[in-house]
């Protein structure tokens, strides 16, 4: 809502500055975004007196003027306007001025004559449509005045952002009420004199009570097709509205002034002496006054004359009864329409009209008459109209006064500080409430324009607003906790944070990608679309599907990092993935996943680190590190194709179930994301991992007292036999003296497809020192068993 300070001052004698008002309104919850000067661009334009005007010797229709603009020099200006004459006071744009149309005035030589400025028309100044000649100002104005000052244009306009509850403040009047209450000033309404005259008229008004509780109209005859006066046009412009003609301008002016949208029909174009406000029963096409054909649906409220619809109620009038240059008689409508229906219709039709915006939020049913009369009186005054006697009206649901019980003590209970009963009473009265004492409590009658006030708490808020919420003290509450709270505590944030802390500690950088991806990204990764959740109204194709896997986002992050010049990328993300699930309340299942991505060198490429690319061992090692970090027992790996975007992959088994997969991003997919070399990726089902971690109990084992004996064996095996198989086979033997065993070394001799794998088996007896002989016996048994069970040979 744009609030010109001078307009406000017609309603309330506020003598302070725009900044003082802006600060106070902001602290009342009416946030002032800025104080602007809507005509700042006209400030360089000055008044000038034409001291001499003679025809240009070298051109017809041009005049050589000498113009006094208050400076030491009289400016020579070549002017082509037919109406320019000596003695006039005119607007002069000096050299260097940029006019609203974008034209910058330069020193010029026109047909041999020097011109140091331009005498402007209304249109050139952006102040109106007149362009037949220059704008001639009041001859009494002194030369050299800045044009906005000379014309009395609004220089200070407050841009106030109005919250959806404050429909009353979508008007000068509403903001004036707040200002009056805030500064203890009286509210002064302009006098409205309705002088009725002329022949009686009749109009039968019927309304559908559910959607139109009030409809009234006045008839104004004998209107002349004139523009509205400059002061009105300038005000409308200051509020961002384009002036049209007196009739339209007056309805807009009163809308801004009172918040009550009005509509003017050309009365001669209405058929039959009836008006009806009712919902349409059937769909139909209707041409609105902007010339567009609109599809109306059953339920839309329309205004009907004797033959058909003439307006979409509260949204936009129809072309068939639009006022024009030829209009002499208007029917001025002032009504109240159902907010929800107006909102639905306006939204569906895509019409964001000032009228609909206010009807959606609710208009003052009592102030309605004042607005209508104000507009009628202005039409009579400014367009020569005569107000016909009487009002055509239907009011099936007259406004009834609303009264709320208010306990003054509630204010202190809610706020934690007591502004006092006197303050509360003064505030409520200043806001237009009537306060009556009833025993301990007050009966507060609410003003008709504050439809947002309904309950005691709403009044508490009003008192708090005027008391100043910034005056509340800061007091820490004693937050209550029960044993139940602690027992059923939600641990997910702490658990996720712990895994994130792990990621950071192993040198990974955390990525946070959008939850939505494109269907194309999914397809590129081979992820199926069925079972995925689609956004019904996505912002773009890039964001149409909720991700079922973190990999598309991680690959995008990789591409961004590579584009940024990073060659070594180590990222992780912990976020939710989404899938359809009929058993869920929302039809969607959400599950926490961990994605880890490695690309480029294993270590930073400088001293003292060794060179070399990260590989499968790195990504696998990170996952095992996480599991050990979380206190989970050993995991198992199974080479298996489980992720469509991975090559050379293995799934990881925890507690018998699959907990994720690691592998190498398929080369053609990695290429598509600009990777130079292999991209290693782990996709971990964090729900499962955290569930198992939650069940883990740490248990102390007494330290061994006797020394170990180590034995190594080097085996030769092909790629078809996994190193895991060696370890599993030893595990299956369950030898009691075996303390631990691990792969000591893997060596590829480079002859054929074989590896030499050295295993170390560590032996220990819990109660005594082992003898070499008994170790040899067990070790021999283990080696013999390996050779029997697996296609391996001792090297």
């Amino acid at each position, binding site marked *: 809502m744009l609030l010109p300070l001078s307009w406000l001052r017609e309603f309330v004698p506020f003598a302070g500055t725009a900044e003082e008002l802006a600060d106070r309104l902001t*602290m009342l*919850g009416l*946030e002032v975004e800025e104080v602007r000067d809507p005509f700042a661009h006209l400030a360089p334009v000055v008044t000038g007196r034409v001291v001499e005007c003679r025809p240009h010797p070298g051109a017809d229709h041009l005049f050589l003027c000498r113009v006094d603009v208050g400076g030491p020099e009289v400016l020579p200006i070549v002017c082509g306007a037919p109406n320019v004459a000596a003695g006039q006071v005119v607007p002069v744009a000096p050299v260097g001025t940029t006019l609203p149309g974008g034209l910058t005035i330069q020193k010029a030589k026109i047909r041999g004559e020097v011109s140091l400025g331009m005498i402007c028309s209304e249109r050139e100044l952006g102040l109106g449509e007149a362009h037949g000649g220059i704008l001639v100002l009041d001859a009494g104005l002194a030369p050299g005045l800045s044009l906005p000052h000379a014309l009395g244009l609004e220089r200070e306009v407050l841009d106030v952002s109005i919250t959806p*509850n404050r429909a009353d403040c979508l008007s000068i009047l509403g903001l004036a009420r707040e200002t009056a209450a805030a500064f203890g000033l009286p509210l002064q309404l302009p006098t409205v004199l309705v002088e009725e005259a002329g022949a009686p008229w009749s109009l039968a008004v019927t309304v559908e009570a559910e959607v139109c509780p009030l409809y009234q109209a006045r008839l104004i005859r004998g209107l002349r097709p004139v523009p509205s006066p400059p002061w009105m046009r300038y005000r409308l412009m200051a509020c961002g509205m384009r002036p049209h003609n007196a009739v339209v301008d007056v309805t807009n002016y009163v809308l801004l002034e009172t918040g009550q949208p009005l509509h003017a029909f050309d009365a001669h174009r209405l058929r039959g002496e009836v008006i009806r406000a009712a919902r349409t029963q059937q769909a139909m096409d209707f041409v609105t006054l902007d010339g567009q054909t609109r599809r109306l649906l059953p339920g839309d409220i329309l205004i009907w004359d004797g033959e058909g619809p003439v307006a979409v109620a509260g949204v936009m009038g129809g072309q068939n009864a639009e006022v024009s240059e030829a209009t002499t008689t208007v029917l001025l409508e002032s009504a109240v329409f159902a907010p*929800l229906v107006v909102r*639905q219709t306006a939204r569906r039709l895509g019409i964001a009209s000032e009228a609909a915006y206010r009807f959606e*939020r609710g208009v003052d049913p009592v102030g309605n008459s004042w607005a209508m009369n104000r507009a009628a009186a202005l039409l009579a005054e400014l367009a020569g109209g005569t107000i016909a006697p009487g009002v055509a009206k239907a009011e099936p649901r007259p406004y009834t006064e609303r009264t709320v019980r208010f306990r003054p003590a509630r204010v202190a*209970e*809610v706020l*934690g500080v007591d502004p006092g009963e006197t303050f509360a009473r003064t505030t409520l009265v200043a806001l237009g409430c009537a306060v009556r004492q009833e025993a301990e409590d007050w009966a507060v009658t609410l003003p008709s324009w504050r439809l947002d006030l309904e309950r005691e*708490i709403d009044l508490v*808020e009003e008192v*708090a*607003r005027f008391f100043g*919420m*910034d005056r*509340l003290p*800061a*007091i820490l*509450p*004693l937050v*209550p*906790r029960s044993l139940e*709270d602690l027992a*059923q505590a939600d641990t*997910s*944030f*702490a658990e996720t*944070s712990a895994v*994130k802390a792990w*990621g*950071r*500690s*192993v*040198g*990974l*950088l955390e*990525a*946070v990608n*959008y939850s939505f991806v494109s269907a194309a990204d999914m397809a590129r990764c081979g992820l199926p679309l069925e079972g995925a*959740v689609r956004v*019904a*109204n996505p*912002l773009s194709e890039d964001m149409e599907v*909720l991700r079922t896997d973190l990999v598309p*986002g991680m690959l995008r*992050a990789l591409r*961004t990092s590579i584009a940024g010049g*990073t060659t070594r990328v*180590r990222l992780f993300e912990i976020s*939710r993935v989404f899938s359809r699930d009929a058993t869920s309340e929302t*039809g969607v299942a959400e599950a926490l996943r961990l994605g880890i991505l490695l690309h480029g060198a294993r270590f*930073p490429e400088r001293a*003292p*680190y060794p060179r070399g690319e990260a590989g499968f061992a790195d990504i696998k090692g990170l996952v095992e590190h996480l599991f050990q970090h979380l206190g989970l027992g050993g995991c198992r790996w199974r080479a298996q194709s489980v992720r469509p975007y991975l090559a050379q992959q293995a799934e990881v088994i925890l507690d018998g179930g699959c907990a994720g997969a690691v592998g190498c991003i398929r080369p053609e997919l990695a290429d598509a994301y600009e990777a130079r070399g292999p991209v290693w990726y782990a996709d971990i089902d964090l729900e499962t991992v955290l569930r198992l971690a939650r069940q883990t109990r740490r248990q102390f084992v007494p330290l061994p007292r006797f020394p170990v004996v180590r034995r190594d064996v*080097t085996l030769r095996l092909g790629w078809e036999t996994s190193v895991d198989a060696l370890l599993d086979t030893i595990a299956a033997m369950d030898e009691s003296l075996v303390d631990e065993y691990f792969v000591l070394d893997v*060596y590829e*001799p480079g002859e054929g497809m074989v590896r*030499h794998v050295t295993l170390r088996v560590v032996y220990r007896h819990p109660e005594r020192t082992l003898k070499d002989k008994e170790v040899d016996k067990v070790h021999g048994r283990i080696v013999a068993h390996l050779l029997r069970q697996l296609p391996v040979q001792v*090297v």
Partner: protein
Amino acid sequence: MKRELVAQLERLVPRFDEMLAQAAAPEELEAARVAFLGRKGELAALMARMGELAVDDRPEVGRVANAVKAKLTELWQQAQQRMLPRPEGAYFDAGEPGWVPDVGALHPTTLIQQEICAVLQRLGFETVSGPEVETDFHNFEALNLPPGHPARDMQDTLYITERILLRTHTSPMQVRTMLARRPPLAIIAPGKVYRRDSDLTHTPMFHQIEGLLVDRHVTMAQLRGVLTALVQAIFGPSTRVRFRPSFFPFTEPSAEVDMSCVLCTGRGVLESGELCRVCKGTGWVEILGCGMVDPAVFAQVGIDAAVWSGFAFGLGVERIAMLKYGIGDLRLFFENDTRFVRQFA
């Protein structure tokens, strides 16, 4: 024969390494060298057996033998280095680069969420989480935002179906908590939220933290206490907090909270005399919305507003992160350029 010889050669390496590792004196080191690399050492013995091989096999085994010899020599030299008597200060340069394990970093939204949750947990609030895909009921209706309410315009919504949507704020967690548990309640709910909005200052996904306290005799002064504690914990004890009336359908009274600008310390102008661009010269920046739980919300979740009262607040994590770390461009948050995230190590 060939294979056995190769294996024996290869095994020299770990055996030698182990022996060197156990050597405590230069004499022991020398003994190890003689045993393995000496003229009558193990390597020499194995190499002597080359002659027994088939002629074709000799080059390959020869290559292995040479590789093993090189490795053994390297190991011995390293061991010798270790053993050298080093005068104080010599052979030592503290300026040589250290082996720094990779330094990881958390995303700034994570850092801010953890920091805020930590402060509020110290004050007694419990952290909870809930679904990002929500029902219209939890996201809007129960929060006093019935269908057609003009305040729904404040949040452009991404829908899955007509009644299912991506939550537009973390406030549905108020509803879920109050439906699931009886008061007194004190929770905070951090998480992702979504809006159908994308420009320089809006991303379609961002993070919020919701706070809710429901108890007997909760006051707005207590709300101010908690938020002041929070803001001062994050931005420093000299930060000032300003409460300004506002409107949210689910709180009444409602307030917008501003804090004194971090860049110009609330003066509106910088040292250079320029107008501060962060607060646009006002000295204040808006950081969160809050208020007392509206009785209509209590009615939706079956809590008696005559007995219980409460406050709620919601803050934007990215906004706090931008102010705290001086990040100027919101879009950087979700591009995940390594150079961006690395700065939050």
